[in-house]
């Protein structure tokens, strides 16, 4: 494969990694605060639907984005109420949210548009368009760096840049601000936060809500940037992959970028080399399709050590039994 091919592969990886990255960072906030979230998938799906539905209804993708975030926030709030206020089981709550989103998106979609749960196709301002970075066309001919800038970095929807920017922002928030210190502390030892005079409940809600916002962006990216409308179940397991990436990344922002880019790259490779002959023997398509997952397991087993989750993760904060 030539250099341009590599660039295109990376380009594809970046697009595929973006929703994973957003969801992964979302999960990172939540889980760093001690709230496990297997409902990323459902929140993403709900946001995908509402962003597309509202964008199609209003004709504005920005209003759509807001609606998507709003929908994701509502589900996040349910997760918060269940797992923080009522100290329920976080896994059950997440499972419920996933079911709820797959059901409600279609039920509402059908009642709204009568298109079998789909939304109308989005056009023009109802979609996120690709952005060309400054001078992209001018520098394209510079060897190597030109294509990297013009074809790999440039030409994505704004949400891709938002997602990328969120990596250092997340790092900075977590490790350089008061809020981040408290957030991390509440995921490790909520009693320490509580006795330091900070509200455990407040912090955890904040984290869950940030998670809602980020998964909201992820969902909107799927429906209004990568595609042009909602199709039922269109999150297609990406929330779970994001969760895997989060564990892979050991709950760290920069690692999250690495992990999701790796997943993106593996998928892009799988797409690109779906039919491959090895020494004249054709490899089954299905093997190539499973390859990203196989490689994930191999990498995990071979190179990534034990991942230690936030210590108070998954457990509700109970002072009095």
């Amino acid at each position, binding site marked *: 494969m030539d250099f341009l091919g590599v660039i295109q592969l990376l380009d594809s990886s970046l697009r595929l990694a973006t929703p994973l990255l957003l969801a992964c960072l979302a999960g990172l906030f939540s889980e760093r605060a001690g709230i496990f979230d297997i409902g990323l998938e459902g929140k993403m799906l709900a946001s995908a639907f509402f962003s597309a539905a509202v964008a199609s209804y209003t004709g504005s993708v920005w209003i759509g984005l807001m609606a998507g975030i709003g929908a994701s926030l509502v589900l996040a709030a349910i997760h918060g109420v269940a797992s923080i206020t009522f100290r329920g089981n976080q896994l059950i709550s997440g499972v419920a949210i996933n079911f709820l989103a797959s059901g409600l998106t279609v039920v509402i979609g059908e009642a709204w548009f009568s298109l079998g749960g789909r939304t109308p196709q989005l056009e023009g301002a109802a979609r996120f368009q690709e952005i060309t970075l400054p001078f992209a066309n001018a520098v394209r001919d510079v060897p190597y760096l030109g294509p990297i800038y013009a074809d790999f970095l440039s030409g994505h929807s704004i949400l891709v840049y938002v997602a990328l920017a969120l990596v250092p922002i997340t790092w900075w928030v977590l490790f350089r601000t008061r809020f981040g210190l408290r957030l991390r502390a509440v995921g490790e030892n909520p009693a320490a936060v509580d006795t330091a005079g900070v509200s455990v409940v407040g912090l955890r809600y904040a984290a869950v809500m940030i998670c809602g916002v980020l998964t909201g962006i992820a969902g909107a990216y799927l429906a209004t940037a990568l595609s042009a409308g909602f199709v039922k179940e269109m999150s297609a397991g990406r929330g779970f992959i994001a969760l895997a990436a989060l564990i892979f990344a050991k709950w760290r922002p920069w690692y999250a970028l690495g992990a999701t880019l790796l997943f993106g790259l593996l998928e892009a490779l799988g797409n690109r080399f779906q039919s491959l002959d090895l020494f004249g023997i054709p490899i089954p398509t299905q093997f190539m399709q499973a390859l990203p997952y196989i490689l994930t397991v191999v990498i995990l087993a071979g190179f990534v050590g034990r991942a230690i989750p936030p*210590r108070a993760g998954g457990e509700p904060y109970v002072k009095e039994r």
Partner: protein
Amino acid sequence: MDETLAIELRGISKAFGPVQANKDISIQVKRGTIHGIIGENGAGKSTLMSILYGFYRADSGEVFIGGKKTEIPDSQAAIDAGIGMVFQHFKLVENFTVLENVILGAEDGRLLKPSLAKARKLLKKLADDYEMDVDPDAIIEDLGVGQQQRVEILKALYREADILILDEPTGVLTPAEADHLFRILKGLRDEGKTIILITHKLREIMEITDTVSVMRRGEMTATVKTAETSPEQLAELMVGRKVLLRVDKTPATPGAVVLEVENLRVVDDRNVERLRGIDLTIRAGEVLGIAGVSGNGQSELLEILGGYAKGTGVIRVNGQQIDITGSASDARTRRARGIAHVPEDRQREGLIMDYRAWENIGFGYHDDPKFNSGLLMHNSALKTDCVDKMERFDVRPPDPNLAAKNFSGGNQQKIVLAREIERNPDLLLIGQPTRGVDIGAIEFIHQQIVALRDQGKAILLVSVELDEIMALSDRIAVMFDGRIMGERLPSETNQGELGLLMAGITEDAA
């Protein structure tokens, strides 16, 4: 309104579900004094103080601070009212640095940097003022418990607490450290701060407090001036009956060597060497006490002897060397060699808290043919066994169907002891036999240990309570930093000497 009162509590009651932890408690604490609170385990001391600190909310009652009625809905309110508290179980974020823990919740602005710098400076000053050195950048879990406690105190001082509550602070300290702490507390008192000290050690109460309140079963039974009372009276107030504060025992008659350990080394999973070449022997019919501040390798020693840490060196039991590195080296094979083990942390290791008493009575011995047929467990055999042991060890309530978590700490310990002792082992490892156990039960447990010794068992006793080590041991070895600093006979040593050894100071160095 009495301006001289730092704190007044009136009619505080608090129930945890069916447990009434505090019942209509009133107490007054004078400004600029050290006020002790003493009481058996579960008497409600921690609960009361946690209410004052806003950690729990009382069901009823009022709090007055500096004479003013104050609502304390959460810890922030308590901090604002000038209260600081060092909890019995530290409230530290283990993988944060000291500085991060100190500023947590008391940061100056949205960004950490200025707060960290300020805290670093202040920490240095506090360290100078009170001789409390801690590396500000150390990670909490790398610190010893004593250091961790300093961090807790520094946290309170950083928040400019006027009233400092310490809940069982000395349990984790060497005598020297405890003395140091007391000097600090006295210094603080002399600066006009008010200190509330919870402890179950009568000696400390007598040594440092100005007044003392006694709690029993959720109620405040008395408040007296320390100068006007005696340990015996306090003990009686606590328990409600006369108690024996000494252990009666005859001199040991050691027999054959049961355990020999040579050059034992253990490296933990973070690659820190925890045991750095331990040599020791124990004979039948004697108690070897291991003194030391916790975190100096005692746990690792018990773990490798008990079969669940890996290391290098030689361990011989009854003259036969046992495998300590291979895959067959586990707790099961140790038990088969006649080693029984009462672990330091009964709730984490010794018991499955959700298992019923009868299930716990076979824990570790569950592959004994008496308890199972290879496939099925003989639950009825376990139950019979449990009823029997509960009776002989006076476990209360004697209900084999109660889950371990529903027994009080002392009774949990009795269940573990019953299980391990009754196996008739050659060697008994005992870690912290009376931690969190009240005076009444301590008496019983100590008698059991002495009786076992008199039956000719070899006993390795690890305890951070020097009193206990002194009272029970026939020989005392002091551990510091993974090494044995020296061995003493209890009759020929004293707390001062042991305290120095515990701090790593040998005579030649001193």
